[in-house]
């Protein structure tokens, strides 16, 4: 765990860098690679900062960072604009409300929380899509994306661990 001394945490470090990494990972996993008929999975990498940013500290910039990230996902994936922005903000709000209950729990328990929040986000995305397109998305496809996204918890854990105590004002 790094200690930044008495300096305030630079938003570029805990907001900007994870956001850029998420975008990069999304672009990487959008490569049209098919090996023996199997394609790459498509996890929602933006769930990692949506969970970790709310766990690290409440912030004014984080929701707007998530909005930008969500808009990027929508435009890059070709989905309805605002869908992922809204879904990620639902996840952020949930973690912000429940962060007192989550803080300090064991790693497996935190993984379960991450999976739960991811599930709620996917359900939110499902409902928003239903309202926007007036059609029901495939539940199996939603479940598959939930599964591969829930596996990203180690990255979220690493991000929380890295910046949780980085700013002395929030100890």
């Amino acid at each position: 765990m790094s200690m930044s001394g008495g300096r305030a945490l630079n938003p570029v470090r805990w907001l900007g860098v994870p956001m850029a990494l998420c975008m990069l990972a999304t672009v990487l996993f959008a490569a049209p690679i098919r090996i023996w008929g199997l394609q790459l999975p498509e996890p929602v990498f933006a769930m990692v900062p949506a969970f970790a940013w709310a766990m690290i500290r409440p912030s004014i910039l984080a929701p707007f960072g998530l909005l930008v990230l969500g808009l990027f996902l929508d435009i890059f994936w070709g989905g309805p604009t605002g869908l992922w922005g809204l879904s990620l903000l639902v996840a952020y709000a949930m973690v912000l409300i429940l962060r007192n209950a989550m803080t300090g729990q064991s790693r497996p328990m935190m993984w379960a929380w991450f999976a739960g929040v991811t599930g709620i986000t996917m359900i939110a995305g499902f409902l928003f899509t239903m309202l926007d397109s007036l059609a029901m998305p495939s539940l199996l496809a939603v479940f598959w994306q939930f599964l591969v996204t829930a596996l990203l918890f180690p990255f979220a854990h690493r991000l929380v661990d890295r910046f949780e105590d980085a700013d002395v004002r929030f100890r």
Partner: protein
Amino acid sequence: MPFREGPLGDLKVPLTWTAAVALIVAAVIAVAFLLADRRETLQEQAYGVTRQTVDVVSRPVSGAIAAPGRWTGLGLDFVRSYFFTASENRRLKTELAEMRQWRDRALDLQDQNERFKSLLGLRTDPPIPMASARVVADSRGPFANTRLADAGSERGIEVGNPVLNERGLVGRVVGVAGGVSRVLLLTDIASRTPVMIDRTNARAILTGDGGPNPKLEYLRGVDPIQQGDRVVTSGDGGVVPRGLPVGAAVKGLDGRWRVVLFADQSSIDYIRILLFKDFAQLADEKQLEAKTLPPVTTEDPQTSILSTPSPAPKPAVTTTATPPAATTATPPAATQAKPAAPKPAAPKPAAPKPATATPAPTGAPR
């Protein structure tokens, strides 16, 4: 004076509350974006400048990322072909023997088809020009199924053009920019394609839901579909040309009819974009704009209804036919009124009359 030393220096706003306010503002913006989105209309105007710019930037980036994967795939193919040459040779020989029979059958049918066409005077659609492209990025999630192709407006591609690979229909173009175009796949939740069952001509709408097998909705008719039936585009509505192969029908676990897409049987690395806008482009506009219209000839109701028809030329030998039969005795009129003509009671006249003018000996009047 620094802020902290001023009168508001002691004012402390809870960070959680300020974060909550920021969250609400961001959520409102997101909702506004979602409400303003017109993606499902699949219109050219709905694909904004932002999307076009992101696509243009994404093309070289995604192209560079996809290149190693493509090379790896090519390398794997090479290794596989090296090790499995003998078995593949045997398989290809068997396939070739089978295909030869199909070739003969196809040539026979083609010949027959050409003759029927010339007999009926059918006008077939001219070939539609195509543009080939490579897929550089794709999204496979439940809420968006699109692909980015590296050919755009400079190749004549327009919004609405159908997209195929070597096996079948892939989707349609929903956004075009310079050097890049966005393809909405048949599996996307916003995708609706008019299709028909090849065997029965039953119509349906192929509806994507984000899964690998789109649904067949609004299927009409009695027993219109069976497992394994071939599904092709119907051409209804003029969105896509008729007869493009789509897939095979299967019954899903939910009891609904779905389609296993032919396009999924091969990698969608390379695609062909049909430069098809609508059926108007298939017609010869010069012919349609002909100045001289054919003359309009209509019957004069005074003569056809009210006046007595002119007497028909009688046959050489007088028959015992009834007056109505006598009025329809002229060859053309007799041909038209053939079902209504009563059977002659007397022996057939010896007059050299065309065979079509005489009622069939066994045919009873209807």
